[in-house]
């Protein structure tokens, strides 16, 4: 029996019992779509968390802090024995770890930027201008820091909202800042008094003023960078020294070793973050990355997905039993027919293939319609269900239900497989029917 005849005959047999076939397919449809929709909610959750995390910062960046070791002291030197230094040498070592794209020390200081009548309190972040391009700083205007920059700065995307008009504010008026970050004159000072007169007897340090050259502004929407101002690390370090001098701060001998408090390490892909982070913590540093939260989140969402998928799977199991039932019924009805086919030369393989094909087709059709149904339900959830789901931890504006394309194919394959599996027992029964007995049944 060739394939076309098999298909033709199978279709005809299913068509012959339209209602029953339809009801069985309906069962598979419900089973398939409940699994897909349940899973899609899990994917939606995952996606929503991912979005949230990526707004909190870069998922492939590891923050490294100076290690404080295991905590026990070496009695002879008074130093912690396994203390490791976060210096230029360490940064170079980080760069040599496999999958690391770039590494930079990070120096922070605080001060004020004055631009005409407006001013803003800022965090200055000094980073290595060579490596800035490797970190995921998305530029909105201008460019990133480059080697050779000196008093150049890159503003975070939210900085424009940080400026305010001191004089207006004193009069109780708030005017939205009217600052052109790229073109207005920007002056940085460590003096954060904001122009208030000094208290009697107060000795104010005399800070230098720095004329900044704004080379770029980052895109908005990243909580980590929005309110930061980036500068080349050498400049920031120099400024800190000048600040300390102005404040008559006792000179520390730190300068000779150039140690940092923090460093950033960029990894090539999210899959390697954990591995690199392990290497760094193994050498004695403290390291933190958003992928720590991501890992937790993934664990949680896969648990949720397993539970949701399980609920869906129950209905598919019921559908599978439905297929088996339909096919067994069909054998009872067609006993004589099977007998006739055997007598006039159908091989047992033909009989088996015919039954398996019919049940596989029920599975496949159920899968196809189930996928259609899932997309409808998913659309409905995304458009009308957001009010409800916002309350259970979804980010506003994110999709509740996401159906990845691979799920579509997996669902088709799975429902067909379920069909074949459910048809296997009936097919075996049909195969084993004695031709001579089958032909005698009325």
């Amino acid at each position, binding site marked *: 029996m060739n394939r076309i005849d098999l298909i033709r*005959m199978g279709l005809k047999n299913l068509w012959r019992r339209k209602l029953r076939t339809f009801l069985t397919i309906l069962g598979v449809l419900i089973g398939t779509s409940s699994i897909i929709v349940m899973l899609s909610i899990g994917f939606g959750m995952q996606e929503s968390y991912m979005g949230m995390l990526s707004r909190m910062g870069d998922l492939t960046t590891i923050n490294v802090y100076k290690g404080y070791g295991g905590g026990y002291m070496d009695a002879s030197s008074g130093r912690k024995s396994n203390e490791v230094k976060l210096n230029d040498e360490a940064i170079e070592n980080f760069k040599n770890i496999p999958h690391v794209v770039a590494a930079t020390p990070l120096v922070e200081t605080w001060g004020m930027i004055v631009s005409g009548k407006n001013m803003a309190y800022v965090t200055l972040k000094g980073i290595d201008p060579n490596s800035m391009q490797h970190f995921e700083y998305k530029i909105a205007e201008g460019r990133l820091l480059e080697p050779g920059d000196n008093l150049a700065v890159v503003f975070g995307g939210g900085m424009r909202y940080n400026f305010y008009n001191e004089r207006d504010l004193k009069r109780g008026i708030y005017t939205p800042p009217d600052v052109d970050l790229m073109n207005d004159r920007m002056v940085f000072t460590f003096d954060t008094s904001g122009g208030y007169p000094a208290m009697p007897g107060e000795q104010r340090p005399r800070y230098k003023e720095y004329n900044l050259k704004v080379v770029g502004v980052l895109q908005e929407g990243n909580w980590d960078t929005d309110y930061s101002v980036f500068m080349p690390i050498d400049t920031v370090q120099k400024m800190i020294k000048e600040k300390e001098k102005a404040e008559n701060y006792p000179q520390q001998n730190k300068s000779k070793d150039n140690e940092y408090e923090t460093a950033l390490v960029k990894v090539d892909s999210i899959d390697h973050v954990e591995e690199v982070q392990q290497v760094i913590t193994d050498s004695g540093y403290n390291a933190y990355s958003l992928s720590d939260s991501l890992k937790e989140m993934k664990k949680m969402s896969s648990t949720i997905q397993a539970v949701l998928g399980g609920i869906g799977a129950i209905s598919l199991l019921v559908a599978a039993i439905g297929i088996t039932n339909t096919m067994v019924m069909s054998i009872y009805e067609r006993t004589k027919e099977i007998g006739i086919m055997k007598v006039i*030369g*159908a091989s047992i393989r033909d009989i088996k293939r015919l039954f398996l094909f019919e049940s596989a087709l029920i599975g496949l059709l159920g899968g196809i319609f189930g996928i259609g149904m899932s997309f409808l339900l998913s659309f409905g959830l995304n458009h009308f269900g957001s009010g409800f789901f916002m309350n259970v931890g979804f980010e506003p504006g994110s999709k509740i239900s996401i159906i990845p394309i691979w799920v579509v194919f997996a669902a088709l394959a799975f429902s067909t497989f379920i069909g074949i599996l459910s048809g296997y027992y009936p097919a075996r029964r049909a195969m084993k029917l004695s031709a001579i007995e089958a032909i005698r049944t009325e």
Partner: protein
Amino acid sequence: MDELINLKNVRKVYRMGDEKIVALNDINLTIYREEFVCLLGTSGSGKSTLLNLMAGLEKPTKGEIIIGKHHIEKMNEKQLAKFRQLHIGFVFQSYNLIPTLSALENVSLSLTFRGVPKKVREKMAKEMLVAVGLGNRLRHKPSEMSGGQQQRVSIARAFVGNPEIVFADEPTGNLDTKTTIEVMDLITDMAREHKQTLIIVTHDPEIAPYGDRIIHLRDGSIEKIVQNKKKEDYA
């Protein structure tokens, strides 16, 4: 004369609980190529069992059944199906047509299992239906036809693959006298025309004379064999 079917010491016993029923007892029989044999006997004589054994639908308890060079009793289900498909045609008392298929589809069904393409097999089936006088009933379902017409369809189905042997089990059992004669004439003519071996089981002594040889069965044994026509006449 070519020997086609050889039965050697064939015995068939059915078990009904603890009781043994001997359906066939030590049958020795040779059937020749292109011969027309009638197995005549009352109900319970074992004639249908004998036919089923020769067609490979049942296995003998003991003995050998050789068709051509093939030992039927040693074949498995798969080989038997193939063997039936290629060498054997069947006509039943109750026609055994598939009710949901048209006459044309019923006739071409056995060719379907052989893997004959649709166009070819429908042409063959159509020719065969025309030959049995049902050229105007191709698209009719069995329920839309009389008993005689249904049996003609069934005959067309048996002969369409041009098998070497055609078995007929009480082919006229459900038919009236006039139709019986028509159907018998049809079967015998077809078999002669295509030089096929025809084996008919019947309890009707009026049918028996159609055969070249009449084998009388009683209680599972061959009672007597009547040579109806001289071998030379049909060889």
